[in-house]
């Protein structure tokens, strides 16, 4: 197999140096077998340009830190093989998240805010007894919870979402999926009203326009449509039941 020469067009911008306008820089690289974008970027940094900024930790699609826009689509760089791509490859940072520089974005702050907004922890009134045996859960429920829980917080669903691109306060598929995870969990004692406070608005379940770029671009292949529509149906049922009182002025 004759090795291809790959041409990378990479977004360059350093917010610390706003005097240099954003531009696309070209790098050429010999393709090797089994090459991922992760491997390619490291080669570029080692051999061609030590100033290039990008994020990696696990290089095995577990940590979610290497998400970027590869030839237009948000996905994990460490999971993307160059052999599946044409010889011209464009790399852009994820939109929506704060740009750290070049391909590196700060997804951490966004996901932390989301976790706080959705109160992403089990709400229970039960006293924790460290000596007692753990409560049992049937396998079906455990599996159901595990589905949304596979999220690695890479941010691809948010980056691919048209709504999230124009609405800073939108929770995105990641956020709604997180809520679905707790709704499914029998240990979480939150009532539908309490969940409604969290996602029963345009910033949450009702803001989704159903474009499904999240579902189509999730590197973990989480069935996001199922999760989103599950939360939406629950929240609509709750919203139609709700009684509100007006403040008399």
């Amino acid at each position, binding site marked *: 197999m004759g090795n291809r020469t790959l041409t990378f067009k990479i977004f360059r911008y350093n917010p610390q140096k706003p005097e240099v306008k954003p531009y696309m820089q070209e790098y050429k690289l010999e393709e090797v077998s089994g090459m991922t974008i992760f491997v390619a970027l490291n080669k570029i940094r080692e051999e061609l340009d030590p100033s290039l900024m990008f994020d990696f930790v696990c290089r095995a699609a577990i940590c979610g830190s290497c998400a970027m826009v590869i030839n237009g689509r948000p996905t994990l760089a460490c999971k993307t093989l160059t052999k599946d791509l044409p010889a011209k490859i464009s790399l852009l940072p994820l939109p929506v998240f704060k740009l750290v520089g070049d391909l590196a974005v700060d997804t951490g702050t966004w996901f932390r805010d989301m976790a706080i907004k959705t109160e992403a922890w089990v709400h229970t009134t039960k006293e924790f007894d460290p000596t007692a045996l753990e409560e049992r859960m049937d396998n079906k429920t455990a599996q159901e919870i595990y589905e949304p829980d596979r999220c690695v917080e890479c941010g691809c669903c948010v980056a*691919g979402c048209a709504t999230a*691109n*124009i609405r800073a306060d939108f929770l995105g598929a990641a956020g709604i999926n997180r809520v679905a995870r707790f709704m499914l969990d029998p240990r979480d004692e939150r009532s539908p009203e309490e969940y409604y406070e969290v996602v029963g608005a345009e910033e949450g379940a009702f803001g989704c*326009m159903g*474009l499904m770029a999240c579902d189509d671009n999730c590197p973990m292949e989480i069935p996001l449509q199922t999760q989103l529509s599950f939360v939406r149906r629950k929240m609509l049922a709750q919203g139609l039941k709700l009684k509100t009182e007006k403040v008399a002025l």
Partner: protein
Amino acid sequence: MLSQRILTKNPKADAYLDAIEMATGICLVSFLWAHMLFVSTIILGPEVFNGLSEFFDIYLLSYIGVPAIAIIGLIHFVVAGRRIPTNIRDQKIIWQHAKQLRHTDTWTWIFQAITGMAILVLAALHIWAISTGWPIRAESAAERMQAFWWFYLILLALGEYHASIGLYRVFVKWGWFPRKPIFFVLKVVTVIIVALGLGAMWVFLQLGGAA
């Protein structure tokens, strides 16, 4: 929270808006498909068409139906239209986003916004045309078709597109059926309805000279 926000807080509003968007949409799709079936009775002959039309007149169904559909259409336009970004910057973001992503369902949403606005204008003209030429009979319809066949061709295409994609989106959002099969089913239904529409148009054009 800001006081003006506290005083106007209505947690139900977003749920209701979402429900209204869906309900008006489903009403309009059902109407459009029924309407196309009624119109295509012309294929069975002018007598059948006129008979049906008279039936709607006698029981005053047209006099209730037409204004009702116009109002539902307007509500749908306002409620579904709330999703369309109104400032230039956000619109630019959406276009750039769609071009970069090359994702079918994202593009169809943009077309949905465009066809929605076009339908608002075209459907208004259509209602104006039929009400000034009242009652609807095979001859008057044939005359209209002769003069404005291109108008009806555009309205048929846009209306069917908007209805099918809209209904697909409803199923996607509420998750009642799996996405891919429902898309296929809706495509088949659309082809049938468009074929009926074209068939009816053709018959009207044939009638036109004779009438």
